[in-house]
């Protein structure tokens, strides 16, 4: 589903998504697929020693979810740049909500702010994606 940019105003939320909690199996799968084998994401005892009450979700897995929110509306070939600041730690078992807000537009392009928060409204990641509106 693409977004009709003519019908939205700056500051409008153009897309939202729910991020179900990740479990240990999902984090192990991402560790294998990405090659990020830091035990903080896969070993509860290690995470506990580092001060976390549960496994820590890979920041890049959160960014991948924000990327899916973008590609659900714009094909990857239209994305010019995509940046994220990792602001908080998401733990296994925590659900998130994501939002994509129109922040700027120009002839042939648009820029959106991305936000990911826990259901408890804790900030996890924020970012910016720039897209070209022609291929």
């Amino acid at each position, binding site marked *: 589903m693409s977004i009709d940019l003519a019908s939205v105003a700056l500051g409008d939320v153009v897309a939202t998504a729910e991020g179900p909690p990740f479990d240990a199996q999902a984090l192990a799968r*991402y560790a294998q697929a990405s*090659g990020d084998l830091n035990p903080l994401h896969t070993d509860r005892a290690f995470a506990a020693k580092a001060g976390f009450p549960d496994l820590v979700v890979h920041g890049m897995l959160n*960014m*991948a979810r924000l*990327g899916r929110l973008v*590609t659900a509306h714009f094909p*990857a070939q239209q994305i*010019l740049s995509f940046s994220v600041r990792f602001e908080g730690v998401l733990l296994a078992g925590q659900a998130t909500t994501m939002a994509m807000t129109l922040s700027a537009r120009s002839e042939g392009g648009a820029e959106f702010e991305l936000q990911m928060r826990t259901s408890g409204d804790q900030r996890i990641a924020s970012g910016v994606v720039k897209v070209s509106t022609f291929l």
Partner: protein
Amino acid sequence: MFFQSTPVAIDRAHIGDTLAPFDVVVEPAALAAFADAIGETDPVYRHEIAPPTFMKVLEGKDNSSRRIMEALGVDLRRILHAEQRFEYHAPIRCGETVTVNRRVADISSRKEGLLELVLIETQFKSATGGLLGTSIQTVMVRNPKPGAT
């Protein structure tokens, strides 16, 4: 127990250091496994082109991120991935061979040296030398406070 009076700064002479370029094949099985891991169901990003964050997987081959941090003398337990930026020039296609060039683009301090930021810039090129994209990773190093155990 050894108490350090000042945080040990990363030697700024490392700015500009490069890793030997390496080639990575975008294996169909690796792309499908990545799609599964991020919950991507669109067949385009399973079988045809890499999804937006897949460059991170390519650049991390052979523990390259870890090798850079070790070369800088950074304690791996003190690092956090603070920011990540990707720039896209052309799609990375399933099956293609990508040449990966990584370099330490910058090292800077925050909070009187308690935090150091390392920028690693990675360029991805096609077999014909065309730029496919760039990844800029900001790694935050948390140095121990003076006098802390």
